[in-house]
């Protein structure tokens, strides 16, 4: 089966790092350990049989009430093999950090800033970890489930 090539390769190479896998609706998904994310991403990009050269999307989901609370989600695409894979990493609220993948895919830069901005998950070794869509001085992270939808904050002027 073509669909599970990626997951098999990952399980071979990183047997201890894969927490869970599934292929719901045909989307290959692997939940991996937080410590190994950069090594796994570098492997997915470089391995001759995988070559995931596109990082299409990077986002997070807030599973409020579960532990670990956050989940950072990577969507990768391999141009050569025309395959997609989803990598997920759980991040606890108490230690809201994960390694940046900017060294692997430069386009992760703005995506990671967006996750930091809207969810408050920080990325280690990111070249410029600051807000991107909201302004400096905005309090809180609006896409967290416990951020009230009707909350208003005064729009402040630029900070120079």
């Amino acid at each position, binding site marked *: 089966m073509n669909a599970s090539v990626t997951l098999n390769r990952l399980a071979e190479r990183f047997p201890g790092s894969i927490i869970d896998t599934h292929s*719901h609706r045909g989307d290959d998904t692997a939940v991996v350990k937080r410590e190994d994310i950069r090594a796994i991403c570098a492997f997915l990009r470089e391995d001759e049989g995988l070559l995931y*050269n596109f*990082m*299409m999307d990077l986002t997070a*989901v807030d599973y409020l009430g579960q532990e670990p609370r956050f989940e950072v989600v990577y969507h990768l695409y391999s141009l050569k093999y025309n395959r997609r894979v989803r990598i997920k990493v759980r991040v606890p609220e108490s230690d809201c950090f994960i390694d940046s993948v900017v060294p692997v895919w430069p386009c992760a830069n703005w995506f990671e800033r967006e996750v930091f901005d809207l969810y408050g998950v920080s990325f280690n070794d990111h070249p410029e970890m600051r807000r991107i869509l909201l302004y400096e001085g905005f309090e809180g992270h609006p896409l967290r489930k416990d951020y009230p939808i009707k909350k208003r904050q005064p729009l402040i002027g630029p900070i120079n």
Partner: protein
Amino acid sequence: MPDIEKDLHTEHMVINMGPSHPVTHGTVKFLVTLDGETIVDLKVEIGYLHRGFEKMCENGTWQQVIPYTDRLNYVSPLINNVGYALAVEKLIGIDVPERCKYIRVIACELSRIADHLTNVAAGGLELGAFTAFLYFVEARELVWDLIEMLCGARVTTNYVRIGGLKNDLPEGFSEKTRDVFKRVRVLWKDVDHLLTKNRVFIDRVRDVAVLPADEAIALGFTGPCLRACGVPYDVRKAQPYLVYDRMDFEVPIGDTGDNFDKYLVRMEEILQSMRIVEQALDQLPSGPINIDMPQYRWQSKDDIGSRIDSLIFHFKTVIDGIKPPPGEVYLAVEGGNGELGFYLVSDGTGKPYKCRVRPPSFPLTAAMSRLMKGRLIADIVPTFDMINMIGGECDR
């Protein structure tokens, strides 16, 4: 010579372009550090059009997201509608009727034509080619007339539904489309003559913002900007959705990725999209446009008014929302600017738990500083046009 330079005042100058500036189509700010007219550094500040798209989606029902998607890429809203509906259908695990698929393809391609026409028109205008702008705005107006005929609105279309469409093609749509395309092709030729061999235009766009293919991939380029770099990646070909696998069309690619290649790729794609629409109209099958599953797509108003079960389903889907099974999907379509992806997470309730859009112009805008370093300040104008940043989509 060194003596002269020593006495010159050669400090770098930092200037702000935007957030409201004729060059910045969207509302965006460039912080440009200049050495004379040469750009030493360029920082892009986005977020001026951030409206909290995801937060709004998470607090409405699955169907209520569709009008919000119109406002993502507001130059080609139908593609956003289709992309979102396809993602939800994938999440539920349903397939829409054949006729619906064809009409969706027609809607998508009309949108793509309008998108590329707008982009090339604005690009010409900014470099002084006002005639080309007027010609293509006329063409876009004609395409918008078709879209208005289809769904009653020109920009805020709100046409596609989960499991179907708002309405079928109106009477006389096919003939009108063919008439419009005759005129659009004439206008396309005129603009082609005005720009493609125009010395002034070429001098401003050729060899500006050149990018090697591997770097474009690493920066997350997709769509016309990636294809201009010579990578033939098009979601419609790579992972065909709807009925694109039955359509005969070419994917134009460029060579160096400079602004001239981006322009040429878009020009060719306008023609290819017209071919797709004509083929889809020729092959259009008859039959229903909505899926026959009242728990996901309500039935006709006649049924709702006369049958109790239809009325109950209608009430339940409107008040509670449709309920996709728990799970997560990612689905990508080829938007006007590149891969438009939707990542949806359902927890089994009537509201999306997570509704993420992968905006194609987000990584493209991020690459502006890479493209512009070492170039002249005047090169920002054509480059930013060809990047085609759409504020609604980039900032969400």
